[in-house]
């Protein structure tokens, strides 16, 4: 078992990936990035030198690398109280001024938050009017998000969350079970566009009324969080909303004063200044 990787070795990996493939992990939070690299080396039985060689010589390997380096653990309706607030206050507030609006899920991973949102909008009876864009850096996880298919063993926690969310139906109304998988109704994702997009290096591509980026920026250092918040600021209409993870904070970012806190508890912010 590999116990540790030197910072110099981590820097060699991120520099190579940046130079050769254009993905920039140099400002990722060190401790989790290191754990991901140790995990990758163990899974592939590689040394650091072996990994560098593979990245150098096998361009196709970058897809696997991306899939391993990014954390793809999420749930449907994670933090049910957040989803209740979204349904009962934030979305009604947006609807007061916009009959139709746009939502961005930045770093959507395997799509659980997108499916949660689609269910929420359907239960509010407004699904037809809302356009959703869901992005991730990792193409293989985006494929999974498009499938909206999850191991049935995950459904226990997902169902508990849905019950705490106090949805109008049953979570089982939205999927069918087949060979140990919960396959969600594709109709839910009719208005969702999935897009491969790197939050770190990508250009701002549209404007939105609501951006969800929960438990994504925790993998970045503060300098990078600061830069990404600038992009979110630019990607939001004035008075648009931004939701981050319940244990994240934006208070040290340069652009923090262009937002007001709508909910400190659920970490919903609103853009008030261009």
């Amino acid at each position, binding site marked *: 078992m590999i116990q540790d990787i030197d910072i110099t070795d981590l820097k060699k990996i991120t520099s190579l990936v940046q130079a050769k493939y254009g993905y920039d992990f140099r400002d990722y*939070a060190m401790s989790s990035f290191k*754990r991901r690299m140790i995990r990758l080396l163990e899974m592939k039985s590689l040394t650091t030198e072996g990994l560098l060689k593979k990245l150098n010589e096998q361009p196709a390997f970058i897809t696997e690398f991306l899939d391993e380096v990014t954390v793809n*653990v999420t749930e449907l309706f994670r933090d049910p109280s957040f989803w209740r607030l979204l349904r009962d206050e934030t979305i009604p507030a947006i609807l007061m001024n916009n009959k139709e609006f746009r939502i961005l899920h930045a770093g959507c991973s395997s799509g659980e938050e997108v499916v949660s949102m689609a269910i929420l909008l359907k239960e509010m009876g407004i699904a037809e009017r809302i356009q959703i864009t869901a992005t991730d850096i990792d193409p293989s996880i985006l494929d999974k998000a498009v499938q909206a298919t999850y191991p049935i063993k995950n459904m226990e926690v997902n169902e*508990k969350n849905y019950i705490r969310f106090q949805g109008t139906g049953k979570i089982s109304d939205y999927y069918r079970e087949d060979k140990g998988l919960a396959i969600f109704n594709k109709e839910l994702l009719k208005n969702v566009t999935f897009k491969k997009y790197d939050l770190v290096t990508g250009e701002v591509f549209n404007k939105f009324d609501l951006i969800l980026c929960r438990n994504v920026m925790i993998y970045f250092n*503060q300098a990078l969080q600061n830069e990404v918040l600038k992009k979110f600021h630019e990607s939001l209409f004035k008075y648009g909303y931004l939701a981050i993870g319940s244990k*994240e*904070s934006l208070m040290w970012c340069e652009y923090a004063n262009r937002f007001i806190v709508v909910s400190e508890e659920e970490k919903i912010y609103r853009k008030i200044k261009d």
Partner: protein
Amino acid sequence: MPKFNLHNGFRAVVIGGSAGSFQGIVKILAALPQDFQLPVIMALHRLKHVRHGFVEALSLKSALPVVEPVDKETIRKSTVYLAPSNYHLSIELGNYFSLSTEDMVNNSRPAIDITLSSAAYVYRNKLVGILLSGANRDGGMGMKNIHDKGGVTVVQEPTECLIDTMPKAALALTTIDHTLKVEEIITFLKELNQQYKHEHRTT
């Protein structure tokens, strides 16, 4: 006359605990003086869906502030930190926390191993690791990392634990410097604090 032979320059205390550790945690926090100088970082297994109540319950007993850190929060002296539910808590070079939602480790998130190992990496021999009662093996690898980096390792005396799986797993895996009852852990921490204050008296 000091009971424990502590060297200089400790920077943090990390505590891991699971089933049966709550009483011990409460006793320790209730006994720590308001001028306890080091940060106390706790990774405790807890109910995932209960976001509230735990910090409040611990705050009632503690003279020191008890907080759940947000991502990238700076680690301060004289503060007790509790890993938030459903997140792993790591310590980063530069003396701040980071959170993550990676897979569970040892069926746990927060995992004690992650907090202890990242603390060992950052604080090296300037760290005290304490592992209390618990029903699984989480924390053992973290204690090994602390020992390997030269830090001091302490486990709760297994006979005093409600469930002794966790301290016993650590004892089997690595060198444990002190096996102590909760009362002795309190004495140990108070002595650590006196030592810290003595060192920093003239500076």
